[in-house]
């Protein structure tokens, strides 16, 4: 009998962590400014002050690295959120955006863009703050509407989430249609999703939310195996189902909200990566959840690097890359494995 053991878990996770680190290093040296690996040695061995040092170090450490770290967090968050929501809703079509969190965040961001707000709290810019608040409000709304007799109804939650998302999307369309041309550009740019121009404080805050959220979800990973069986069977196997559902919903929504508020709507990662990883390593959430997170990070870092280098200096929206590269690969996998999958 092949089962998940600690050894298999450690080897898989270690392997993915190594690939992630290699990807981060490799992608740091891709870009229009020509920086080589040997420059890195000189950057660290030479003292700061010389102008060439400054230029290369600034590009590497202040432009590329924060962007790559952000892609790492956003990709991981979207993939983990996809895995958890698919288990919670028992639906292979679920993705991080299905319960309306993304539309709430988008509306928040758009209001900030429209009002041209420049409030900062601490050193945080207003757009991500508004986006996060919008996402949070949507989560609370969907959660409370779905609660019937102090229990969450999964079917109701799915419907409420989808309908709330649709209402918010309509409001976004309305706002876009009446906004001035200059602001429309900003709105569309945000909606397309981008990982550019974030500074370290923002990256740090997003990392905090995403890492804490993922660790909490990981701790409950075995519960998600049981949730897949349905609420009745999960209860009969000793699971506190209401608690597990709450953790899954709130955890997945929070990390999605944190990711969306800094990156906009980057599609495909949250639905593609969970399925691909299930085909490769199986459905046990104890391994699937962290493996999908790491794989989502790797995938989004590579996609974002392609987005900023392929047609440099023009940047392709990263969502275009994630869909165009990922979609065909996914269909190929489905065809190849279709006898045993779904």
């Amino acid at each position, binding site marked *: *009998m092949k089962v998940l053991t600690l050894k298999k878990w450690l080897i898989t996770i270690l392997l993915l962590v190594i690939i992630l680190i290699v990807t981060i290093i490799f992608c740091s040296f891709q870009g229009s400014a020509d920086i080589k690996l040997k420059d890195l040695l000189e950057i660290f061995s030479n003292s700061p002050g010389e102008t060439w040092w400054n230029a290369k170090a600034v590009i590497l450490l202040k432009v590329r690295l924060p962007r790559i770290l952000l892609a790492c967090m956003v990709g991981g968050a979207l993939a983990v959120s996809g895995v958890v929501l698919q288990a919670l809703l028992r639906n292979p079509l679920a993705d991080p955006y299905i319960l309306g969190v993304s539309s709430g965040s988008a509306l928040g961001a758009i209001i900030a863009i429209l009002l041209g707000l420049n409030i900062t709290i601490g050193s945080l810019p207003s757009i991500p703050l508004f986006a996060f608040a919008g996402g949070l409000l949507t989560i609370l709304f969907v959660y409370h509407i779905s609660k019937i007799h102090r229990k969450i109804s999964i079917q109701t939650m799915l419907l409420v989430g989808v309908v709330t998302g649709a209402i918010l999307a309509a409001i976004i369309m309305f706002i876009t249609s009446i906004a001035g041309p200059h602001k429309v550009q900003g709105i569309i740019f945000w909606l397309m999703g981008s990982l550019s121009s974030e500074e370290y404080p923002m990256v740090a805050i997003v990392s905090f939310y995403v890492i804490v959220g993922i660790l909490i979800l990981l701790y*409950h990973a075995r519960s998600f195996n049981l949730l897949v069986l349905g609420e009745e069977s999960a209860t009969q196997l000793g699971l506190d189902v209401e608690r597990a559902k709450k953790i899954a919903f709130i955890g997945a929504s929070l990390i999605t909200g944190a990711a969306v508020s800094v990156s906009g709507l980057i599609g495909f990662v949250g639905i593609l990566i969970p399925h691909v990883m299930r085909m490769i390593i199986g459905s046990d959430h104890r391994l699937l959840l962290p493996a999908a997170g790491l794989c989502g990070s790797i995938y989004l870092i590579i996609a974002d690097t392609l987005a900023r280098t392929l047609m440099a200096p023009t940047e392709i929206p990263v969502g275009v890359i994630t869909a165009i590269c990922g979609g065909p690969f996914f269909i190929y996998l489905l065809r190849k494995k279709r006898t045993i999958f779904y």
Partner: protein
Amino acid sequence: MTLTPFFRVKDLRFRYDENWVLDGLSFEVREGEILGIIGPNGSGKTTILRVLSRVLIPQEGEVHLQGKNLLALSQKEIAQIIGVVPQDTYFPFPFTVGEVVLMGRSPWLSNFGFESEKDLQIASQAMALTNTFSFSNRLIFELSGGERQRAIIARALAQKPQVMLLDEPTAHLDIGYQIEIYDLIKKLNAEKGLTLIIVAHDLNLASDYCDRLLLLDGGRIYKMGSPKEVITEENLSRIYQSKVLVEENPVTGAPRVTLLSKLMSQSTERSNRVS
């Protein structure tokens, strides 16, 4: 020797909305018996299993499990005593048979962490008993109906339960598999001393395999007793509103039911009258 009843159900009433689905049930389940629950559709058979496994909490009445009020136990403690085999399980994602059976160890495990050698051993034994070990690495939805039902029984066995509740375990199976599942149930009862409560839709299988039967009608107990006491022409024709013939099964000695078509019995009556 007086046995403490395994389950004691007293004045149980349950409703989903306005109508009482279970309307004042009192009965006991003895340790080590096979109890069959029979009755027409909508008489509350499955609801009883849900209440016994505390998926549903009754509005009135009490359920005692081994002398303890069911409400005083945690869901985990209940799952360490009661294993449930649902009628049909839908798997939206590809789990292997081994993974599904190991989920039966959940009530004994903490949140994160991996199954121990002992857990694997218990799961292997459950698979050996149910004859599912040979396909432990296959995906659960690649299996035939009978194989899948056996795998789900193995999952319930991996819980190391003292009682197993089965909800129409042979509902979608052909006759070969039906006998296989019921023989397995009998074996678990004889060899492991497992108490079994089976919601059965096949009256003949229930009659052959169960020690006692509980005949439900409209959320109330119409009759409870040995198959010979419960499976009678009078009881069945009244509850199921149809003509039946009950005779003795020449092999098992248990009552055997034959359904009589209303059309055919009319025509026999008519031809009898003519002759």
